[in-house]
């Protein structure tokens, strides 16, 4: 029992990480249909920037600046790559491949800068202070991560549900051309969506840099699991992505009770395959039913 609860807590940590990346991706994907795999690079950039900037700035400012830079990176990608490409009629796979190209470029530029050393950010002593929760414990950094994940998620949901900008984002996701016809600027939506999505991913990246260190290829691992969460949650559903990511994090840890860690990810993927085969629309199907019933 002791072990189980501790694993749940650890699962919450993993879930929060996945959730940050997943919610960011879900927002971008639902709004734009861009399979933005370079999201993984934005995540990594958060960690790398923080690591580099920590040499120049106090750690708090370094983190803030790193997140800001990553947001800029995300926005630059859409402004200078995806958008011009779409103007030329590119979509789907074409955008996916450009994004992939961007991921490869960004990842490796950091590798040149680092010499492939893991970028371990020294976030200060507080980070690894043990926080006791009953008979169980987390470190302060993990607690901060969970809190930040929930706060950012809550903020995003409020923003989407309550503000005009939120409605505009939804409108854009349904019919981007018509957004222009009713006199709204699609660029604004793109910038907002990419900025918010990148912000979430960058925060996760900073945490990873502080915890285990950022490394080449790490972004992709988190990205894959997160995209899976987005699908399980139902494409387009921010809350679905968040919940599914948390569940995946918990599951990954709980599965340790019955199997070795080398198999947990595979087990989750198999489960995922079964799930989408049985219920292709993911958790959202349930949501949709409820929404219709109430309509």
């Amino acid at each position, binding site marked *: 029992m002791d072990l189980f609860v501790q694993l749940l807590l650890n699962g919450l940590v993993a879930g929060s990480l996945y959730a940050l990346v997943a919610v960011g991706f879900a927002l971008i994907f639902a709004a734009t249909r861009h399979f933005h795999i370079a999201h993984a690079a934005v995540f990594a950039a958060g960690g790398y920037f923080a690591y580099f900037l920590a040499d120049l700035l106090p750690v708090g400012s370094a983190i803030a600046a790193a997140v800001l830079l990553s947001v800029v990176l995300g926005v630059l990608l859409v402004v200078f790559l995806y958008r011009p490409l779409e103007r030329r*009629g590119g979509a789907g796979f074409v955008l996916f491949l450009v994004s992939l190209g961007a991921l490869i470029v960004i990842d490796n530029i950091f590798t040149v800068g680092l010499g492939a050393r893991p970028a371990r950010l020294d976030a200060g002593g507080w980070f690894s202070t043990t926080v006791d929760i009953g008979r169980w414990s987390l470190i302060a950094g993990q607690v901060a991560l969970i809190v930040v994940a929930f706060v950012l998620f809550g903020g995003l949901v409020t923003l989407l549900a309550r503000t005009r900008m939120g*409605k505009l984002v*939804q*409108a854009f*996701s*349904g*019919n981007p*051309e*018509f957004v*222009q*016809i*009713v*006199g*709204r*600027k699609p660029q604004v939506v793109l910038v907002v969506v990419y900025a918010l999505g990148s912000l979430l991913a960058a925060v996760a990246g900073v945490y990873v840099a502080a915890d285990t260190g950022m490394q080449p290829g790490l972004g992709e691992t988190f990205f894959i699991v997160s995209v899976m969460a987005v699908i399980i949650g139902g494409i*387009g559903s921010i809350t679905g992505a968040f919940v599914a990511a948390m569940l995946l994090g918990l599951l990954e840890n709980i599965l340790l009770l019955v199997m070795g860690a080398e198999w947990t990810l595979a087990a989750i993927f198999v489960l995922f395959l079964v799930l989408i085969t049985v219920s292709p629309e993911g958790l959202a199907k349930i949501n949709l039913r409820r929404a*219709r019933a109430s*309509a």
Partner: protein
Amino acid sequence: MSTSVPDSGVAPAARPSSTPALLRLDGVHAEVAGQPVLRGITLDVAEGEFVAVLGHNGAGKSTLLRTVLGLVPVRRGQVRFSGDDITRSPTPQIVRKGVSLVPQQRGYFENLSVADNLAFGARTDGRIGLDEIYELFPILRERRGQLVGTMSGGQRQMVAISIALMSSPRLLMLDEPSVGLQPNLVARVMEVATQVNTEFGITVILVEQNIEKVLQVARRVVVINQGLVQLDEPVAEVTADHIWQLL
């Protein structure tokens, strides 16, 4: 399959007008997917006019309206609205100058409710508000919470028309607004178009296939053929048969 038509074509009838043109197209050329579609359209529309645009399927009517709105880039020529050159202006900017379009397809947001859709058309200074819309299409009041994507073809078309009407434009462009609508609603839509034109002085450009219907409401007829203006006359001076022969 388009056989090429020489640029000269039929010269558009000169249209001396006392009021300055609200919309002026001057030798506009445009391409879609690499194919030339508009091949030198010259057209003046004065403030307060009601112009019907007719033409074969594929003649370039929709492309014409989309070009005005900046959705299709102009290759050659010039578009002016209310005296300003809008040839290369971005769509939202043109819309803000007072141009609205009911597109031929998907003139609504499927993933938003009816009410949210209508909010995109709403103007604070709007002359046509929710009440007027709900009076025109009562079903929309009933279904104001339904996602537009789950509505029938005709119901969606009502939403599309409503959004454009609510934005109270100076120039309203309707691209076959009656497609898929039940007969009594078609009549209502035509009435409303006439009404906003006469009561509010909104300039209307209407694309339609049904010649009889057009002649009832419009005051000027423009026929587009293979990307060129083939005929441009006041309704009084043409007959349905005359147009029939052109088509």
